[in-house]
């Protein structure tokens, strides 16, 4: 990708944008569960980006929620136990 970028950097912004973005968008697409399950061929970049943003936000929320739960769990067990260590690692 970098090579492509550098190669195309001189060509013009559009080339860089199109190719790279297309690839990146496709990669993103694969990561997104929603789009991946659908027909992924016709998803526009805008849609992918939008879905990515939404997905990241949802993941953030999930992480927060899980952290909360882990914290609560951590409170219920011995602080020295292995579980506690695990939990702490998870919570980071």
């Amino acid at each position, binding site marked *: *990708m970098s090579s492509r*970028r550098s190669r195309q950097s001189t060509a013009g912004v559009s080339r*860089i*944008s199109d190719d*790279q*973005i297309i690839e*990146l*968008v496709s*990669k*993103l697409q*694969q*990561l*997104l*569960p929603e789009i*991946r399950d659908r027909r992924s061929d016709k998803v*526009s*970049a*805008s849609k992918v*980006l*939008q879905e*990515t*943003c939404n*997905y*990241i*936000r949802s*993941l*953030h929320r*999930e*992480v927060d929620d*899980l*952290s909360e*739960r*882990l914290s609560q*769990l951590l409170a219920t*067990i011995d602080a020295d*136990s*292995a*579980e506690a*260590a*695990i*939990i702490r*690692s*998870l*919570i*980071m």
Partner: protein
Amino acid sequence: MNHCVPDFEMEDDYSIPSSSILNRAKKPSMPEDGIMELLWQNGQVVMQSQNQRSFKKPSPFKYLDAGQSALREIRSSSHHQQQQQQQQQQSVTDHLFMQEDEMASWLHNPLSDANFDHDFCADLLYPSSPTAVAPCVTSTATTSAPPTPPLGRVPQVSASAMVPASRPPIPPARRNELESTRIQNFGSLSKEQPGPSNSKSVAREVTVVDSSDTPAVAPESGASQAMPCNTEAASGEDNNNACANMSFAAVAYTQSAAVSVGASKDNIATCEATVTSSPGGSSASASAEPTAQKTGPAEDRKRKGREPDDAECHSEDAEFESPETKKQSRGSSSTKRSRAAEVHNLSERRRRDRINEKMRALQELIPRCNKSDKASMLDEAIEYLKSLQLQVQMMSMGCGMLPMMFPQHYMPTMGMGIGMGMVMDMGLSRPMMPFHNVMAGSGLPTPAASAHLDPRFPMPAFHMSPQVPVPDPSRIQPNNQSDAMLNPLGMQNPNQPRIPSFADPYQQYMGLHQMQLHPPQCQATAQPSSSKPSNSKGAENLENHPSGDMAR
């Protein structure tokens, strides 16, 4: 300055310094307007007559008409402005006002009698009408809780408090209150509006007072302050108009910023105008005020106009329409093609704008993303998304495992067996296996380090109910199958080496159920050696699984 109307002659006669009201402090009055200043000296109001000794009475508004009261107000206000120091000369002012009231008030009679009781202002300068003063004072005092506050602050406060409370119609009382409040306003920088500004005159008076106060602060700020102050004070009152008027007057007054007779005159005019809720343009300040106000809304309108314009600019329609219009303006033939091209360009631009917008949003979501390049930013987004997914997987597994970890006590070694299952699919974000205690034993998995979640799940907990965990793996399995995550897993799993170790204890202690559990996962992952109920086989499978997963 003698704004006083002939009717207010009496004021002069009484030589009550209008400014005295303002001069609450013990400081020597600043007779700038030639207004008598009442100096509160140790509880005694000493009136220093300035150029004119007109006792300005705030309350008279009620009784007097706008002009007169305004005049008085202006005078006092102007003087007050100069004073700047709002000291509580309330008693003094009250006295002064009272005196004025006395003079002019034929309504106060009943009340004044009551006021006479207090000799609070007995020491007022007004020897001419000590009786009047007394009643005034008394009235004021009555209105204000503490009748003889040395500094007048207390009475001011109380007066002010009372003023609103006692709007009621005791004219003299009200006047006193007004005066006191006015005094307070002077002192408190027009923070308080005279409560009983029931009449426009009163309002004007208040306005004037405030306006006078505001200049002290600053012409602009004062105005602004005055206005809100007025508004607040008058909120309780029924003088919305008064507030407006006051604001007008204040603004106008502040604009004039000159505590001069002329200014006062303007104020008076303004005050009068305010009555009609129109800045009366007699004074420049008054006119300025409306202009200032107009500019506000004008600015707002302009601002609003700009915003929608901006929005439109961003909106595709605007872009689309403008060129469209341009096209139409040209020749039709040429415009058609150009229009088409324009349309295309516009649509393309719109699309790009949308994408850019979303890229920006995405960039904001990604922490520590300092890339301005689209491609690099997308790369970072992809990596971040993967890491987030992993993290969520690990955490959810941990959450799921925690309750299962507890029973592990009867399987101490088992605890170690958590397998870091391979994350079959990076993007799936589905932990193959909840984190097992094994991890704790062998090492804590690094959530973000592409932890491979072992499809196996904690056996101890599922020892009895192996079915429980199955759903998870089975749930995960489809995901695993769908992705060729094996490769990425292999690459990403630094913990893999640990898996076999986990697997061993796992194998040893895990029972059939585990084998059963694993097989589905293993099978999902197309592990040939997955379904071996025997421990040995299970061990093999388990071991193979990780390896198999890794191999995948």
